[in-house]
């Protein structure tokens, strides 16, 4: 099949082959991936919990955003790079794994959710920056963000248990 050939050729590329063959490369990349993802989720959760009005009620929303956002983006880029390298080493296995595909879908949904928030309700942030009068639409977006990212972490963990179950044809 054409598509599976693409994934297999990625695996056989010098980078894919090196990561798969090396004793240290895969676990090292995985370690950096985990530290990056933990930072992504930690920073996003702090922001979402503030938007839900559950923590830091006396700190302006924009101040929490300034504290967390640089970590979110830096760690996300690191997770993306390490995740791509991990993917290349076993591409055909990941592409038939429903938990990997669900994880990718959930990351896309989390991105769309964030984009909708920032192009919509966030424009009025100065009206609800301080205190707890946060619009319902913002609270819904924050709740969805938490759910999406928790499921991303869960799917990421299950991938490790199912790579031997879902194997490419």
């Amino acid at each position: 099949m054409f598509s599976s050939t693409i994934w297999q050729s990625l695996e056989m590329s010098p980078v894919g082959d090196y990561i798969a063959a090396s004793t240290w490369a895969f676990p090292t990349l995985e370690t950096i991936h985990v530290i990056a993802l933990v930072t992504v989720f930690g920073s996003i959760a702090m922001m979402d919990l503030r938007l839900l009005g559950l923590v830091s009620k006396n700190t302006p929303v924009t101040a929490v955003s300034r504290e967390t956002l640089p970590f979110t983006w830096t760690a996300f880029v690191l997770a993306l790079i390490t995740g791509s390298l991990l993917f290349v080493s076993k591409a055909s296995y990941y592409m038939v794994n429903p938990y990997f595909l669900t994880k990718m879908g959930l990351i896309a949904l989390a991105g769309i959710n964030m984009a909708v928030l920032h192009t919509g309700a966030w424009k009025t942030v100065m009206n609800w920056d301080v205190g707890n009068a946060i619009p319902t639409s913002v609270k819904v977006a924050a709740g969805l963000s938490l759910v999406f990212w928790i499921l991303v972490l869960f799917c990421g963990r299950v991938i490790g248990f199912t790579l031997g179950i879902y194997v490419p044809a």
Partner: protein
Amino acid sequence: MASISDLLFEMTEWLRTTSVLDLSLWIDSTQARNWLQENFFAIPLMQTAHILTIALTFFSVVLVYMRVLGLSGMSRTMPETMKRYSSTIWWGLLVLILTGIGMIVGEPVRELVNPIFWIKMGMVIVLILLSALYYGAIRRQMVDWDRASSHLALRASGFGLIVLWCLIMAGGRWIAYAPV
């Protein structure tokens, strides 16, 4: 690199001669362990809870450190920063211990007869002791924090705390790859 593997192998062989092996085999025969093994999603769910808690706890540690450095969080005073994050850090550590115990019950031999697990546990104990010292020192100085000196020792040792957290996370991942 080979010498590290050899050392880890030797540590595993030594662990097999201790009562840790008996303990892990006993846990392996308990109903709790059987339940966790029979329910496919039980261990991944516990690991996810462990990772979620690491995220909230570790990022709280990072944000307190950013305030110590004066790089962010300046809208709060240091007492306000400590009030906001110290409960997350200490409750987080407790939940990490509890979910960690759950993970040991789920896979006792893989965890306990594993040199990297014990290296990680050693680092966790050091982390808890250093955290108690570190946050205790901040509490003693926090009232006049922004008017006082540069807090050079806390700036430097805070970096060490962050590195230790990262090493513990690395240990957690490398448990799966220990040459046992």
